[in-house]
Each structure stands twice: as structure tokens, then as C-alpha cells.
């Protein structure tokens, strides 16, 4: 399912430079199903006749990739698509490549020298890009042959490229319709990236603003004596910025990266750019780097984990003295007297004034430089959202605060008000929506420009704006997404499943059956669904409300089965976590259109139960249907047993298929933004001449003797100390279900029999103290209890 490169994808690609970024990029291109050549220089002194020694740099980088955490490859098949080589012996092979991306050291001379060697090798229609983060395209293109110029672009990926959504694309406008346009499409559909067109300016978009933000935040924290943890508390949630804030982010990126970026920006930005005034080295950072405190990759950075005395204490550095002390968890109310952006901007507490100083300066900077770095403010916002994981870009953030209010604030503080901000203040904001729903934003020139949704995407925001839901309750909603297709959106906290979700699914089946053609189950949250809401289940169990719990299980089984047998196609569209019940719902869909970054697993054993909404049954039936496996049904049963008993979680959609969670025919979307549109298209395609699948055939299962055999396996684990006492109990119940309970090979059992076994096993487990302790622990800590 990985290796199905989209139409228009390069048949073959090459990455030059096997540093961290180059190697990770190669891996991700392979994730899209494209064979990649990863080349680096020949190490000094490597003998001419020793290919292994000559390609050692790339080979070593590849080996490191396999151990990368989080994983760089989505599947081991992708690993096989990457081939290591060197820039001398393998240079000629670039002639086969449709896309060559350069990721060598950030030195214009080195890059120019490399490009010189490529000129004669690349095939005429190949696209050459550079992954530079700071060097302007014009500078790099200068020495290229004229023929290559329109096919040369900057593709600035963010690290790690599998997971970071942003690619900044800087191209010469002429090539857009041709090769560069095709590449942009591949970056979008094939690599799943948010492609933002940037003007050819230093640092492009995201890092230009990001570096200013970080530098300002550090300077102001030092000058105002604001603690690291307090700074991160005010510079995160209140502004829709990830909880790492600034110092946590620098720890993540690497303290040593920061001065390098600042130097590069200083060297290339005009002398009057506001960044020049704030770009000063911080002696503390220099000292931390020298002491090995380079961030999470080193001994720690602004934060470190102190493990002395058997405890893990998060400590933060004192910016004045350089000593570490417990970071604590500053509460916004305590340190700043406010919880949101408006409150911080109006606040008097030192931490509030700090946040206001940093954010107003950053937003003003964004407004000042926007005309030079992007075509419109929407591109800037998109870059900050995709590149820095901000919830709103700077201009949406200004609109939330009020452009006029920000301008007044700046004036009061004696700072310049950028013309674009003045323009927005006059216009009443950067973004507008016409009566017909068409959205506009301010262009670089300060005029309204349309905000266009990319073709092939479907945004629930647009659906919501278009009208009321067909049905809604506290935990889910049903939408008409056009063309005869409906969509169920989960809306509870963490998208958990509860009685309301089931009620909505049943309504969805009724309403869709009555005038619609197909149903999609999907949403835009970070996680598709983390499973059942165990809080309610635990509360009911504590009350010994066994009838209610049994009814809840029956409710889920019946609802999911109704999805499976509905007279129209149902397509599941997961992204992020699809755990427990969240995966069970997908296993009852006719088709799964999964985002490549889907992490699926039947993890019920972690809370002391088994999948009882048909998940155990479905996985068993799927494994039994795998006719290729030799040795009769027992290995299939054992496979399902191990998968559930070990709570295996797939680290990608591709892996989920290997585990039997998804089927061979289920499909993958690489770009999150395209997931719902792809799922809808799939649903429409299935709707023509749709016939619900027949009920699964009865299966022959071994009964008690089979359960005993599986039990021996568990006992062995227990003896090795790898299974806890309650693991043995839970696995025993699972074995009973998967082997058919009281039956034998001679009497095939049907789906209902298996579902009844699931329910009975759940009922027994939820009456044990150990299972309830696991649930309580999971709720309290988010981690499984090993009891």
C-alpha cells in the first residue's frame, strides 16, 4: 500500500548529501513508493576498487535511518527502495532520475561545485532542487546552465521530513506549468506536504519569522529575568503555539542550530531588517553548547531531566546564572494573571508583559516582512501552521487580537506600525468573508486576494459554514458533504467513543439509507479516535452496573455490524491514532482510506479488557481468510492472538495492513488535507452498483484445546517475567474468544457466536479488581498499569 506512487511521480529520484536531512528525505521519498539513490562524497582515502568503502557515508546514514525514532520509514518495503552510493562512481546514474534534490552542506561554493558536475549528467527534463534553508535561489541558480534554470527550484523541507508538513517552494515562475509544477504536485500528493510558494528571500517564510520570534523571546527573557518555564507557559497555549513554547522548541531543534541560522540570516538580510538589531549572541547559549547542553540530542538544553536519586525531575536552567533548578509547572494564572492572548496583552504581571513584548514584536515583524517573503498573508500563515505547528498563523492571530488593537499597542510602545498592519486595521482585519462565503485575505500589496482551497481537498470548516448538520449530539455529528455522501465526525474530547457516538452512527445509517449514497467516517482532529471513553465504563463498573456495561458492548457490536451490513458503502478515513474501539469501527467499514500517518492498534489489553465491539472477531476472521498461510487455521488464530495480546500498534497505515488491521485493498492518502476528499471519492466510486457484503461464513475453531495451546505460550511469557499475573488472565479470556469457546473443529461457529464470546469475556474481566485498577491508572496517568 506504500509502494503505489501516484501518477506524475518521478520514476526515480536522488538525494545528494546523506546528512540527517538528506537521509531522512530519501527515506520519505521512498515512503511514497519512489526508488531513491542516496549519494554522498567518497571518504578521504577510500581505495578505488572498494565500492563499500567509497559509499560508506550513505550506507552508514541508511543504517542509522533504520534505527531512527520516530521511524523514518513507514514500512520495510520503503527501506528497500533506497540505494546508497557515492557522488563519484554513481554520478552517472543520476541520468535516470526525474528529480534530484541537493542536501549538502550550506556552503554556496560547495553547492555550486556540485551543480557544475551535474550539468552534463541530468536528463533534459529532470528537476533539480536544493534543500537549502538560507541561501537564496538566485544565488544558487547563478552558475547553472541556462537550460537547467527553469527546472531549478528550492524545496525547503523541515526536519524530520516524514513528519513535518511544510515544504517551502521557491521557483522561477516560468517552470511552473512544466516540470516544477509537476514536482509541486508530487510534493503535495506523493510526499503529503503542504507546499507553500515563497519568494526568494533569506530564510524564506517560516524560519524568517520563526527565528525572529525565538531570538526575541530569548533576548527578552534574559533582559526581563523571566524564567524559562514561565516563558514557555505564556508563549504557548495562550497563542495557539505548541506547549514547547520557545525554549522547549530550541531544545528540540538543537541549541547549536540557532546561532548558525542567526548568522546565516544576518549575513543575507538587509542591514535595516529588524532582525539585525536583535541578532546578538547569548553568552549562556554559547556556554551551554560548549558544555554539551545542545538540547534533547545532547545532555539537555534549557531543560534537562535530572535522574539522580531514582527520580526524574525536569529542571530548567537559570538564564542569569546558568544553574539548573526544578522547572515546576507554572500555572498561567499564578505567573501572568491571565490565560489567553487578550488577557496577557492587557496584563501587568512581568510574565504577561514579557509575552506581550515578544508576541507584538513578532507579529509586527511578520506584517513588516510579509510583502517581501510571500504573495499573500495566507501563505505566511500556512507556513507557520505547517512549519512551526502554530494553530493560527501570525495574521490569523492578529485578527483574533484585533489589527487595530495591535497597531495601538505598538504605537503606545513607541514601535513602528508596518504599513500592511495599518492597512489591515483600516480594513478591519487581514481576512474577510464575503456574503457568498468566498474568503479573501490581504495580498502582499495590501489588497484583497482570494483564499483558495486546493483542488482535491475537503475542509469540514467549509461544510460547517454551508449549513447545519443532519444530526448532532454531544459526541458526534453527521454532515452532508455533497454528491450524495454523508460524513460522521467524532467530536468528543480525544474523539472517544460513547453512547452518543453510537447513537449518531445509527442515525447516520438511517439518514444515509434514506436519500444518500454513501457514508464516510472521518474527522480533522489530530487523532481519528483513541477508543472507548473508559471513564464512563469504569464508573459504571465501579457501580456494578453490569447490565449497562453489557448493553454498551451490545450497543457497539450492533451498531458496528449495522455499518458493515448497511445498504450503502461506508468508508473509514483515519489519521493519527485509531486505537481500540476507534480501530474496531474501521474494521467494520467497507473500505479504509487511511492517512499514511495512521497509528492503529487493538490496545484493549492495556486496560485489562479485550476488543469486544467485534474487533477480536474481525481480526480473527481476517487472519483465517489469509489462505496463503500454511499449517491450517491454528497459525492464523495464533497470529490474531499475539497481535491483540501484545497490543501491537502499527506505526503507519502500511504497517497496519501487515498486522491485519487494514486489508490489502485499503488505500492510503499521503497528504492529510486530501484524506477526506479521497475518502469521499472512494465512497462515491463504491456506491455504483453497491451490494452489502454477505455475512461471514461460519468458521471451524479448535475450542478448549486450542485455548490451552495458546495458554502454554502465555505461561512461557509469564515464567520469563514478560507477562504479569493479570496479563495471563486477560490473555486467557482472549484465547477463549479466538478459539471459539466451547466448540470443536467439527462444528463451525458463526459471527454471532464469536461476538457473544467477546461480550462474555469482557463481562468477566471488568468484574476483576485488576482490570479496574488498570482502567483507573490509565485515566490518571495515561499509561498502562502492569499488574
Amino acid at each position: 500500500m506504500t509502494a503505489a506512487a501516484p501518477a506524475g511521480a518521478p520514476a526515480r529520484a536522488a538525494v545528494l548529501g546523506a546528512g540527517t536531512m538528506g537521509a531522512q528525505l530519501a527515506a520519505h521519498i521512498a515512503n511514497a513508493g519512489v526508488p531513491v539513490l542516496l549519494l554522498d562524497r567518497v571518504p578521504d582515502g577510500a581505495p578505488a576498487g572498494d565500492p563499500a568503502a567509497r559509499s560508506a557515508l550513505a550506507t552508514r546514514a541508511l543504517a542509522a535511518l533504520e534505527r531512527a525514532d520516530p521511524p523514518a520509514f513507514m514500512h520495510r518495503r520503503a527501506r528497500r527502495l533506497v540505494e546508497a552510493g557515492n557522488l563519484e562512481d554513481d554520478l552517472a546514474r543520476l541520468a535516470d532520475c526525474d528529480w534530484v534534490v541537493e542536501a549538502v552542506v550550506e556552503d554556496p561554493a560547495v553547492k555550486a561545485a556540485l551543480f557544475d558536475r551535474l550539468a552534463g549528467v541530468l536528463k533534459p527534463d529532470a528537476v533539480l532542487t536544493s534543500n537549502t534553508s538560507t541561501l537564496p535561489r538566485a544565488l544558487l541558480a547563478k552558475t547553472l546552465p541556462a537550460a537547467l534554470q527553469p527546472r531549478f527550484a528550492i524545496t525547503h523541507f523541515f526536519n524530520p521530513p516524514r513528519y513535518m508538513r511544510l515544504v517551502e517552494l521557491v521557483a522561477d515562475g516560468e517552470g511552473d506549468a512544466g516540470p516544477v509544477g509537476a514536482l509541486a504536485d508530487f510534493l503535495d500528493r506523493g510526499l503529503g506536504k503542504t507546499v507553500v510558494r515563497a519568494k526568494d528571500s533569506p530564510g524564506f517564510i517560516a524560519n524568517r519569522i520563526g527565528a525572529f520570534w525565538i531570538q526575541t523571546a530569548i533576548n527578552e527573557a534574559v533582559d526581563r529575568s523571566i524564567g524559562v518555564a514561565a516563558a514557555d507557559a505564556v508563549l504557548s497555549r495562550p497563542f495557539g503555539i505548541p506547549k514547547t513554547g520557545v525554549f522547549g522548541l530550541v531544545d528540540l531543534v538543537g541549541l547549536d542550530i540557532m546561532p548558525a541560522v542567526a548568522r546565516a540570516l544576518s549575513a543575507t538580510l538587509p542591514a535595516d531588517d529588524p532582525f539585525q538589531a536583535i541578532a546578538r549572541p547569548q553568552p549562556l547559549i554559547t556556554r551551554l553548547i560548549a558544555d554539551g547542553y545542545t538540547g534533547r540530542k545532547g545532555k539537555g538544553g534549557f531543560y534537562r531531566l535530572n535522574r539522580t536519586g531514582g527520580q526524574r525531575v525536569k529542571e530548567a536552567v537559570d538564564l542569569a546564572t546558568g544553574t539548573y533548578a526544578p522547572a515546576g509547572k507554572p500555572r498561567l494564572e499564578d505567573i501572568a494573571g491571565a490565560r489567553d492572548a487578550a488577557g496577557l496583552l492587557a496584563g501587568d504581571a512581568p510574565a504577561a508583559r514579557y509575552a506581550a513584548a515578544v508576541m507584538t514584536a513578532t507579529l509586527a515583524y511578520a506584517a513588516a516582512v510579509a510583502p517581501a517573503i510571500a504573495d499573500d498573508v495566507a501563505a505566511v500563515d500556512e507556513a507557520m501552521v505547517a512549519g512551526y505547528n502554530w494553530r493560527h498563523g501570525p495574521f490569523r492571530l492578529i485578527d483574533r487580537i484585533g489589527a487595530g488593537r495591535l497597531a495601538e499597542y505598538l504605537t503606545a510602545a513607541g514601535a513602528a506600525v508596518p504599513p500592511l498592519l495599518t492597512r489591515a486595521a483600516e480594513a478591519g482585519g487581514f481576512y474577510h468573508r464575503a456574503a457568498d462565503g468566498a474568503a479573501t485575505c490581504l495580498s502582499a500589496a495590501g489588497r484583497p486576494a482570494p483564499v483558495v482551497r486546493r483542488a482535491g481537498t475537503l475542509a469540514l470548516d467549509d461544510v460547517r459554514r454551508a449549513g447545519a448538520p443532519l444530526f448532532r449530539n454531544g459526541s458526534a455529528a453527521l454532515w452532508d458533504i455533497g454528491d450524495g455522501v454523508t460524513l460522521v465526525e467524532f467530536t468528543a474530547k480525544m474523539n472517544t467513543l460513547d453512547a452518543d457516538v453510537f447513537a449518531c452512527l445509527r442515525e447516520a445509517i438511517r439518514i444515509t439509507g434514506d436519500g444518500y449514497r454513501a457514508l464516510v467516517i472521518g474527522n480533522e482532529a489530530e487523532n481519528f479516535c483513541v477508543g472507548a471513553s473508559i471513564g464512563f465504563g469504569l464508573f459504571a463498573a465501579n457501580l456494578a452496573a453490569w447490565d449497562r456495561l453489557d448493553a454498551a458492548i451490545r450497543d457497539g457490536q450492533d451498531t458496528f455490524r449495522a455499518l458493515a451490513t448497511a445498504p450503502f458503502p461506508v468508508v473509514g478515513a483515519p489519521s493519527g491514532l485509531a486505537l481500540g474501539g476507534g480501530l474496531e469501527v474501521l474494521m467494520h467499514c467497507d473500505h479504509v482510506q487511511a492517512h499514511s500517518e495512521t497509528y492503529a492498534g487493538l490496545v484493549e489489553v492495556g486496560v485489562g479488557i479485550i476488543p469486544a465491539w467485534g474487533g477480536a472477531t474481525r481480526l480473527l476472521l481476517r487472519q483465517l481468510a489469509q489462505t496463503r498461510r500454511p499449517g491450517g487455521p491454528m497459525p492464523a488464530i495464533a497470529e490474531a492472538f499475539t497481535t491483540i495480546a501484545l497490543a501491537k500498534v502499527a506505526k503507519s497505515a502500511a504497517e497496519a495492513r501487515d498486522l491485519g488491521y487494514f486489508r490489502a485493498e485499503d488505500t492510503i492518502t499521503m497528504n492529510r488535507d486530501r484524506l477526506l476528499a479521497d475518502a469521499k471519492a472512494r465512497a462515491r466510486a463504491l456506491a455504483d452498483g453497491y451490494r452489502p457484503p454477505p455475512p461471514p461464513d461460519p468458521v471451524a475453531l479448535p475450542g478448549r484445546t486450542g485455548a490451552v495451546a495458546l495458554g502454554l505460550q502465555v505461561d512461557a511469557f509469564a515464567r520469563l517475567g514478560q507477562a504479569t499475573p493479570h496479563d495471563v488472565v486477560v490473555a486467557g479470556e482472549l484465547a477463549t474468544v479466538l478459539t471459539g469457546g466451547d466448540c470443536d473443529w467439527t462444528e463451525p461457529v458463526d459471527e454471532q457466536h464469536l461476538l457473544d464470546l467477546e461480550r462474555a469475556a469482557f463481562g468477566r474481566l471488568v468484574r476483576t479488581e485488576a482490570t479496574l485498577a488498570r482502567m483507573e491508572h490509565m485515566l490518571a496517568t495515561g499509561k498502562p498499569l502492569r499488574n
Partner: protein
Amino acid sequence: MTAYRAPLEDIRFVLSEIVALERLAALPGLEDATADVIVQVLEEAARLAETVLAPLNASGDREGCRLTDGRVTMPAGFREAYARYAAGGWAGVAADPAHGGGGLPALVNQMVDELIISANIAFSTVPGLSHGAYHAIDLYGSAAQKALYLPKLASGIWTGTMCLTEPQCGTDLGLVRTRAVPAADGSYHLTGNKVWITAAEHDLAENIVHLVLARLPDAPAGTRGISLFVAAKHLPEADRAGGWRPGARNAITCTGLEHKMGLAASPTCALAFEGATAWLVGEPHRGMRAMFAMMNQARLMVGMQGLGLAEMAWQAARAFAGERRQGRLPGQPESDGPQPIIVHGDVRRMLATIRAQVEGTRALALWVGQHVDIALRHPDPAARAAADDLVALMTPIVKAHLTDIGQEAADLAIQVHGGSGYVREMGVEQYLRDIRIARIYEGTNGIQALDLVGRKMPDGMGRRLRRLFHPMAAFVEETRPLAADDPALAAILEPFATWLARAQGISLHLGQAAFADPIAATTGAHDYLKLLGILATGWMWARMALAAHRRLAAGEQNPMLAAKLASARFYMTHILPGIGPHATAILAGPDSVPEVGSLTA
């Protein structure tokens, strides 16, 4: 006036059928607490209560306490009675033998409390708070503090108090103002005023040990800045034998006694601390924790006050209804003369109500009480934690539900007495006056309900509720076959099963509402506490009925057993359905309680 008779037969029934004493004796340290020993102790306690304390109840009420020159004189006979009490070892029945205590289960202490309370609740308040003081020092005091104070409290030679309340600071302890200033020798000087302090001054014992909440100079505001101190009326002074005796008078003065609705023989004092010498108990700023240790124990004891007076109300009402002759039943010849009022249906209803409540809640209180011992002593940490969960859940229920019942019973007893009940000489109205405060102090019953719904219910997503609901549900499952075979049992077991299921549904409803909006759910807190109190007592009745049924079927000749079955039936038909209105109120939700604006319009 009715003479008190300790209800030993009923207590024995509960001990054998509900508590299962042999399980307590199996706990480490309680090997000697066999049923025989415990019954013997109770018989002696009954003698003290019946012959020494009960005769002083009415006279104490009439005479009250007197404050002269900062000294409180207790009513006539109390000094001698307290001397008998202390000499009998009653102050330290459950205290550690290492500190001179009796080493019996806390449950025994609880049962003895009931008898003393029934006989003379005002008297019981004086030594009553010594238990809390003992407990707090035992848990949080230094070794030296334990060695000094625990033997004095366990022997009853000294008594104890809990000094929490101040004029501006009642339920909201965060408002405590009393200051503690460190002195050079490691002691502290306390300055401030405490009010409504029970037994803070009296002439029953040679010294009084005050446990005082106060603030250190660097204390944060609110409850996070409160520390616990110990300050004695007379500064302890080492004697030649290596022990301690009362030394110089500390700067603590009783400045007033409250004039109260009831409990006239219990001195409710205003105390002035004027640089009084004190010592820190436990860690600085951790006083609330220690206070709760005292408080939780005190709350169970206040619940016993409700039970004790309900028992007294029962004895008085039953006796009067058997003696007072008024009216005849329809069809009875005039020559029969007027009949004892007990023959009348409504009087029987009132008596049956009091008895079903008294005996049912006694079983409940003692069932909870045995878990105090299990939580303290069980060798398995999981069993200790489970028992602790149960006690934590049930403490607010026992406190509030039992004091409500104490008041209802006292009121019904007056009703049974008719006009005589309203007259002082009859002695019944004293019960109503005396018990009224129990629904208020040690955390009002409203606070108990908040504790239940705001803290005990949500903790661990209802983990504490498990300790009550799992055994009740298991009971229903186990007894279902019995109910199917026997219509008489079915009449008792089936209503319980029905109301249990209803209560589970209501609990789920309230739980979901409370998790969504904890503040809004507080309007249902009182009703939920009552619901659980009525239900848990119903379970006790179902269990007692089953036991009585078995014993009768085994041929045991004992009228009490048939009475138990009758009470159980009555409870199921007349009291258990009382859950209904509470359920309705909970389901009506927070909006059904008028807003402030509407109440002040």
C-alpha cells in the same frame, strides 16, 4: 422518664450476622479481641451507661455548666461519673497498649460510644474529643509528643479538644487567623481566639490538651498555610518518676460559655490564646491533613450520636406507647376500656419507623466501623486500601444520615408521646434539643454531601463507590435463587434489588453530570447522600432478614428474629421507597434549584 437499657441483644445480633467478629480477631494485634471478650466489655460498658451516666442526663440538662473566673464547673455528679469512666479504662479502650490503652478494635470503642451517648450525650462529648486528639498525635506527633500525651489521653487522666473554629472562621478553615510565633526553645507562642470549642474547660480532669490550628509567620494564605499545634491547659512538667504532671497554667483562658438549644451539660467554650506555649504537630503548613485525621474519626462519632439518641427515642416511645391508654380499636367493646396506644396503626407505624431506622443504621455504622480496623491492620495492602476507600466513602454518609435519623427519631418519639412529649418533665424533648447540633458540627450535613459528591464519588472514577456497590450487587446475585424459592424472602430481597438497580442508574446520571460540571452537581449532593444512606441501610436490612430467616428455619426460638423480619419488610415498603423523591430531585438537575436572583427577589 424511661430508664435506659443498653440494646446488647441487638448489638450481638449485628456482631454475629453483619460484622462477623471472627474476621476482626484474625487481624494482627487483635488476636485477643474474641467475641467473648468483646461481649464482656460491652456488658460492663452497659452497666456504666445504665447506672452511672443515664441517671445524670436530665439533671445535667437542668443544671448546665457554670463559668466562674475562667473556670468551668460541671453539673453535679459529673466529676464522680468521669472518675468512674476513667478508672474503668473507657477513655482508651482501643488505644495502643504501649500507651496504656486497651488494645481492642476501634469498633469496640464505637459500640461503647453508642451506649454512653444514649445514656448521656452531653457527658459523652467531654471524653469524645480525646479520641480525635489521641489519633492526631499518634499519626503526626513526634516520638516525644507521643510519649508525653498519649498515655495521659488513653488513661483519661487528661482530656483533649479540637480548636478549629474562630469567630470569622467556621466551615471555611482557610480563614483561620490564630498566629503561631516561633520561640527560641523550639516551642511556639499562640495568639488568637477560638470559639465553640467543646470541653475546652471543665473540672473533670487535671489537664486539657488542645490541638489548635494556627498560622506560622511565613504561611501562605488559605488552607495551605495552616499548621497544627498542641497546647495544654497546664504546661506539662516532668515529675520525679520520669512521667509528666500538670505544671504552670498556660496562657489559655476560657472567656465564655455559649447558651445553647441543647447539650446544656457539655461546655462550649470561647478560648483566648494569649501567647500560649505550644508545640508544632507534624510538618509546618500541613495542619489540614492532621485536622482531617481528627475530623474523620469525629464524624463517625457524631454519626453515633444520631444513632445513640435514636435508640433512646425508640426506648422512650415504645415504653410510653405500651403504657398510655387512649381509645379502642373499631369493634372493641366499651367494657375493654381504653387500649394502650400501641394498638393504633399510626402509632405502630411511628414505632416501626424508629426501630427500622435505629437497628438498620446500627448495622450500617458497625459494618463501616469494622473497616476502620481492617484499614488499620490488615496484612494485605490491597485489603487495607479497599477498606480505607469504604470508610472514606461512608464517613459522610454515616455522619449525615445517622444524625438526620437521630433527629427524626427524637421528633417521632415526641409525637408518640403527644402533649406529654412537649413537656420537660417527660424528658423526651431533651433528645430533640440535644441531637439538633449533630447535624451541624464537625461539618454540616450539607458539607458531608459535598464531600461525598465532590470528592468521594469522583475519586478514581468512582473507585470508592465500588466498595459499597460491588458487595451489594454480589449480594443480589447470590440471593436471587433464594428469593425465587421463598415469597416471604422475595418480599424483602426483590425491593432491594429493584432499588439498587434504580440507584445505579441515578448514580450514573449524577456521575456524568458531576464530571461535566462539578459545581452544578452540588445541588444534587444532599439527595445523593440520602439515597445512598437509605439504600445501604436497606442492604443491611436485607442481610439481617436473611440471617433471621435462616436462624428461624434452623429452629431457633427467639422473638427478636421474627421482629427482624417484620422490620425488614417494613423498611422495604415504607422507608426504602424514600429513595424515589431523592432520585426525582437528582434527575431534575441543577436548574431545578432556584437561582440566587430568584431567591432574593
